[in-house]
């Protein structure tokens, strides 16, 4: 039984397995992963390249199927959802921050940040108002109408962060958010992530091997060779 003060796990993985290919070419990427991420904090998933971090967050986000084990996100077993239900679940409950930002080059910063709202069918004007307001909070007021190729790496990642937050998802998945940034910019982006994304009802999972930003973590799950080796809780 958990202590009353401990928030419930937003994400719970039990004995999750994932392999690619068949026969002799089969590669086991996840070998029985047990993992939890709680709301109200930043959970880091760290480990060497190729240890299965990206595959694990893909499975958690419902972008990949498991080949064994259970994944629960806010009590919902994602494996039980149909393809369309999974897409709708992602649209409503998940936000993404990618290593390469993946902003649409022909949309302005405000338009890029509004994409999840547009995907939900929110009217364009309302979506742009909300994304613009969020960009103001993230210090991008003067760059809201700029196209991605006119933004620095740090500014692009802030737009990506706005895109991940604009529809107020319950789970945010960040894949190497600082990998393409210099240390100072990466630090600033992480500060922004910690201050704007962390919320009592929201879980944030950050995949990284940038140990310079580990001090932002509330929990760090260490991963190696397809397994979580240990998890450390931080104050």
């Amino acid at each position, binding site marked *: 039984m958990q202590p009353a003060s401990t928030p419930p796990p937003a994400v719970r993985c039990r004995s999750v397995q994932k392999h690619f290919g068949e026969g002799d070419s089969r590669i086991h990427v996840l070998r029985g992963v047990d993992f939890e991420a709680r709301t109200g904090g930043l959970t880091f998933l760290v480990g060497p390249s190729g240890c299965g971090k*990206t*595959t694990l*967050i*893909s499975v958690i*986000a419902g*972008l*990949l199927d498991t080949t064994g084990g259970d994944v629960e996100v806010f009590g919902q077993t994602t494996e039980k959802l149909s393809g*369309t239900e999974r*897409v*709708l679940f*992602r*649209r*409503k409950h*998940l936000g*993404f921050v*990618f*290593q*390469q930002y*993946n902003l*649409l*080059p*022909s*949309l302005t910063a405000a*338009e890029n940040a509004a*994409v*999840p709202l*547009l*995907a*939900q069918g929110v009217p*364009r004007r309302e979506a742009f108002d909300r994304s613009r307001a969020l960009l103001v909070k993230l210090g991008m007021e003067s760059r809201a109408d700029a196209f991605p190729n006119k933004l620095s790496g740090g500014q692009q990642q802030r737009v990506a962060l706005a*895109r991940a937050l604009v529809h107020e998802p319950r789970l945010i998945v960040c*894949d*190497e958010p600082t*990998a393409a940034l210099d240390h100072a910019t990466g630090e600033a982006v992480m500060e922004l992530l910690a201050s704007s994304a962390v919320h009592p009802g929201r879980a944030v999972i950050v995949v990284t091997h940038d140990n310079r930003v580990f001090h932002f973590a509330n929990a760090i799950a260490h991963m190696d060779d397809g397994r979580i080796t240990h998890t450390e809780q931080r104050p």
Partner: protein
Amino acid sequence: MNFVALRMLTGDRAKYLGLIFAIAFSTFLLENQSSIFAGIMRRTGSQILDVTDAEVWVMDPATKYFEETKALKDTDLLRVRGVAGVDYAVRLFKGTPVARTAAGNFSQAVVLGIDDATLVGAPRTMKLGAWERLREPDSVVIDRAGYNLLFRGEPLELERTLEMNDHLVRIVGISEAGASFASFPIIHARYSEAVNFLGRERSQMAFVLVRPEPGLGPEELAQRIRQSTGLRARTADEFRWDCIDYYLANTGIPVNFGITIAIALIVGLVVSGQTFYLFTVENLKQFGALKAIGVTNGRLTGMILLQALTVGFIGYAIGTGMAALFFEYFGRQIATRNIILMWQNVVGVGVLMFLVVVVASLLSIRKVLVLEPAAVFRG
């Protein structure tokens, strides 16, 4: 998401304009060539269209189209007149003598000899003069294009003379006859005079022009004439299509135009298909991000189709505009008069270009549908 789709499309200016360019020129070529082809085919029967006084054409069974005729016997006219339901039937001579001007210019011409008494078959649209003046001795009416060919660069003027087979005739009218297939001058004269413009043959009558009595349809009258006389009787519309069918079956024109049309279609399909495919492939990362964010495959398909239909519509509109300008200009030139942009071709090419962009987008859609959204995490 339609907004996002359109912004993605227009964001890459080079490919966007390339797609529009490919579809516009493909449309222009298809509409241009198909309309010119249809216009040339229409010319094979333009003299039939010009005759508004008769609804049934009677000819020797061996005559298959307007340009080459086997003469009827003089008694055939009487036999046709004897068929029940005939309001009137008059003879028509058709010959192709050489017409010479006093200045020495000459050209082969299509001479139509119309009934002396009724002038049935005379051109009704006159540019200068009056067709009724054909009753005057040694008179002819020539079409405007023929006049310009024989009297190059000179103003339209009556009373000029032409010589055909040692017969000197005066021009008493200039008509707006439909262009003939070979673009020869069209000369109308009275039957009794026209027969002298060629070397004398025993029989000269090429056609009998017939009008049914009121209340009787031309198809039924043509059927009666066939049964009663054994001659070939066709309604004006049937005979016009006979001419078109003859040229389609017996000349290389359809093959030549067909090859051009096929090339235009293939080039349009390949260029727009390849460009659209490249456009989608280069945006796969963005489509992957959209899939991860929660855009369904159905919505992405809709976005790609919207992009394809948008460039298709804009390209088609520009291409059709170019074709309209082309025909607006060349339709006013004498040599290419009556060759117009036909609405049937515009609609047909529209359907073809719709299929082209849909096929082009299907290749791209498949690439997006099989895209694993997790790929977006791979740097």
